């Protein structure tokens, strides 16, 4: 179910009313759990069983970790994570690995037939398997207590606002919230509605409009001229941000309506002055997950420098691969890994005595970082390496078509406006009327501005 659709609006309205009309207690949690599975079943009911299996695996592992002696815990942990990875690997990467194996053998001159499995990728599998792994690891690391309630674990994994495209919830963050009954909070409702409104504008108005500029060009790269390619690349640079940040805002806002908090997933990443900062602002839930569960597990920045850079590269390549079973995602991750390594190197060798915080250097850092990010998006978006090279060649023309300029201006406006401190100059008695009336008015204007036919969110495919 697309978040920007009449069906979802109806589903949300019914669930919301039923949720808050129920008396406080566990009933609400069961209602949310049922709603989440109905939400998932609307895509394909058969895969509810797969999600149930992943949930059961996490729950049993959690309970085992709580009762078994420490010696056995390692095996339980790896068994559970291995099961999750096997599920993810089979459904997401089996076809890719088989195809590459065939190609690899062909390069060696061997005609080896590997059956190519034709598997439908379950929506949100990358997200809910990561949730399950997060739960087991956090239990093992004593960051969260192993839950006695299967329903709690199931709701943590399947909570519908974040089920199909994140943000990736950490068990340590979300599970404690399930232990208390969230009260109805006017502040929470206001925050949730504001985020939903923002998400709708991001996704339906901006991202989809930018998609109209980018998609036709990326669909026929060879036929496009330089200006069109540059414009389309900038449009995609904006599209992917507004699309995914819009989805995240919708997810976080929807969760807030039910009294739950989901951590921020985007923090104006295109204002980053370095790639390190970029990954603290872009898809934060994934980058922090990878940092805590992959990068640190690999050794982090301990040990010799080469190991540090290796860990960094490996983490980013895995991050790229997480997005999809395709070489372009791997290349995208590798480019970001390389950029991070170069940035770390630069921090070590840059001359001292220069005011690197001056506006001029900050401007150069911003431009360099964003140019790197934009270049990497080319590999993310293009379906073939040749297309990517064609687009990169167009980018080296160093021309900025007017269309591209206006798109960048919009992104800049969003980032500057969004980072302004909240306005506090209104008299306290006016704050609520202005907010609620304004919200209602804006809702009407956004409704009039929403295209009736919506495009799917980009991150639904991951």
């Amino acid at each position, binding site marked *: 179910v697309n978040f920007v659709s009449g069906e979802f609006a109806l589903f949300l309205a019914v669930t919301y009313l039923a949720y808050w009309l129920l008396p406080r207690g566990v009933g609400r949690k069961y209602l949310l759990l049922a709603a989440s599975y109905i939400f998932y079943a609307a895509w394909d009911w058969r895969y509810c069983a797969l999600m149930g299996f992943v949930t059961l695996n996490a729950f049993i592992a959690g309970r085992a970790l709580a009762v078994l002696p420490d010696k056995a815990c390692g095996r339980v942990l790896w068994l559970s994570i291995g099961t999750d990875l096997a599920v993810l690997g089979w459904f997401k990467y089996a076809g890719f690995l088989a195809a590459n194996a065939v190609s690899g053998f062909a390069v060696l001159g061997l005609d080896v037939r590997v059956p190519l499995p034709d598997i439908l990728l379950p929506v949100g599998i990358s997200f809910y398997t990561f949730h399950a792994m997060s739960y087991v690891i956090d239990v093992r690391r004593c960051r969260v207590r192993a839950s006695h309630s299967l329903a709690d674990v199931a709701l943590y994994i399947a909570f519908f606002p974040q089920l199909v495209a994140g943000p990736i919830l950490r068990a340590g963050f979300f599970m404690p919230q399930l232990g208390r009954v969230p009260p109805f909070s006017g*502040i929470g409702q206001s925050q949730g509605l504001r985020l939903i409104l923002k998400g709708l504008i991001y996704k339906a108005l901006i991202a989809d409009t930018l998609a109209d500029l980018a998609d036709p060009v990326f669909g026929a790269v060879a036929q496009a001229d330089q*200006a069109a390619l540059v414009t389309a690349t900038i449009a995609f640079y904006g599209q992917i941000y507004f699309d995914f940040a819009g989805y995240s805002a919708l997810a976080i806002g929807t969760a807030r309506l039910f009294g739950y908090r989901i951590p921020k997933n985007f923090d104006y990443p295109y204002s980053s002055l370095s790639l390190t900062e970029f990954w603290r602002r872009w898809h934060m839930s994934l980058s922090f997950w990878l940092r805590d569960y992959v990068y640190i597990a690999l050794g982090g920045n301990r040990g010799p420098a080469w190991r540090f850079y290796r860990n960094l590269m490996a983490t980013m390549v895995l991050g790229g691969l997480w997005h999809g079973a395709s070489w372009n995602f791997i290349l995208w991750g590798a480019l970001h890994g390389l950029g991070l390594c170069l940035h770390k190197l630069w921090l070590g060798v840059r001359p001292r005595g220069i005011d690197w915080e001056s506006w001029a250097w900050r401007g150069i850092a911003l431009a360099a970082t964003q140019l790197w990010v934009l270049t990497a998006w080319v590999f993310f978006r293009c379906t073939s390496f040749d297309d990517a090279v064609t687009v990169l060649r167009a980018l080296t023309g160093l021309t900025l078509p007017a269309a591209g300029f206006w798109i960048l201006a919009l992104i800049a406006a969003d980032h500057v406006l969004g980072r302004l401190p909240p306005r506090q100059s209104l008299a306290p008695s006016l704050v609520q009327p202005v907010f609620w009336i304004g919200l209602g008015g*804006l809702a009407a204007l956004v409704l009039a501005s929403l295209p009736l036919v919506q495009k799917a969110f980009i991150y639904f495919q991951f």
Partner: protein
Amino acid sequence: MRKNSRTNRIVRLVALRIALAAIALLVLGLFQSLQGQLPWLGHFEWIEGIRPESGLAWTAPLSSPALDEDGRRLDTALLEWRPGAVTDPGAWLCRLAGPGLAQTPDAFCARRPWRMLGPAHQLHDDIRRKGGGGFSVWHGTLYFSLTDGVDPNEGGRRFALWIPWTEAAAWAACGAAAALLWAVWPLACAVVRQRPRLTLAGLGLLSGAAAARHGAPFGTLAWAGLLLACTQLLPQIRHVRYRSGWVRASALTLAGFLVAEAGLSLVLPDIGLVPDLQSTEMLKYLVDLDTDRPILLLVGSSYSQYGLDETALEAALGAGGHPMQVVRLGFGGMSIPERLYYVRRYLATARHRPAAVLFEVAAYYDLQPLVQLDQNPFSRREIAAMDRDNLRLSLEWVLGPEGAGSNRLALTAELLGDFALRTLHAGFLPGSTWRTVLLGKDYRGTPPKTAHYPDAVIAADLAAGQNGRTLSGAVPVPGAIPTRWTRQAIAEEIALFSAAGTGRFGFYAPPSRYADEPIYARQFCQAMTAYPCIPADDPDLIAGLGHDEDWLDQTHLQGPGRQLYTAWLATRLAASGVLP
């Protein structure tokens, strides 16, 4: 110590301003050296008083004294502005960028409604003989030709000459700009520091307005930016009293929503935004139609769109002593409620009202009046036409005795949904366009034929229609033909036309290979005796439609079949007394 730091600050500020001015001049110098002229520094002169010269050449006087080419060849550019561009001479950035950018493959500028003519500096004799857009500026006069050879004073086209400034004037302008920058920089900094939101709002509005002029996607982006800014500027609630607050909050939100909706209802009809639909284009064509002949309006669907050649009908009627302008209100998939909606809109604003109206008879629409709604749920077309009258009529049918039995609930929900979406203007803005840029089209002609049938099959189909007496029952057949509902819709249409001064009405049923259509048409004509009714049941006509090339598909005529039916209808119309 403090004095020193203040001095340092002033020195830094002055140095910064000098650096800025230097950078500006450097950039301009670079352009000068790379392109041979400064970018952007020029102006447009509209070409007025165009007269024919000789051969393919046209001349017009120029007012700018800088145009004499005495010893200097100015890099002028002649631009042709297509119709509709007069109200949009903006293309702000493209204009600023000058014609040099308009020649680039930048799709953004290339989409503007202008076209470069050229080459420039042509010999006058070449302009006269070869044409092709060549032009020359000579002693205050423009000599030019056009690529199509058509009179430039016709067709609403306009022409403008882009004139670069002389080098001295350009550099003077640059100096002035640098000085201005120098002067306003501290002031701008102070404003930005003191009023960041005001500055942002101003810049945002200016940018949005500028961007919006570059076409629909940028208008949407600018609008989205404005909405985003408003969302961001909403104050943050910090305290809400539990339970007592939410009723008030809901009431306030609803009030805001309703006020905004009321505002949209008031504003949207007046600013010239209309749904960007085929039906709106057709409506514009009908409303703006200017003719001195009486209008014969055909009200129908794709049966008429594909099955009738309006131009041939006009010619045949003219030859028969009935000079009329034939136009059609209707196209593929236009249901009766939808056409009633457009009849209302047409009569409300039409420049000329029709003298006679012919209503198409089609079982497909009459027996299942909401079939389009069923097939295309929540389509923009159905939503756009679902006003209060349409809803009332549709509900009367759905909930009446002859309404659809099995899916009444679904249809009622969809009718109410369409009405709600239309009333709340849902999706209106992205699906709309300015009426001024909308093309007025009547969509004449037929699409290419894709299906082919043996003549024997066609003959069998036509025979079934000719010989059949009862409907097949493929759709539930009501007790009476036409249905109570169809009678009501036609009565409303006739009342509307009569109120607008139209006094001549009739019915016609284009041929179809679905047997139910001719059978229904005969029963319809037997029942509707108040006005002339012309079913396509002439054996001679049917015999002439027996070949594959006569039929676009099973339902619609094309090619020779279309021409044959048009000529046949013209003779029947002349004899029916419908025509004035």
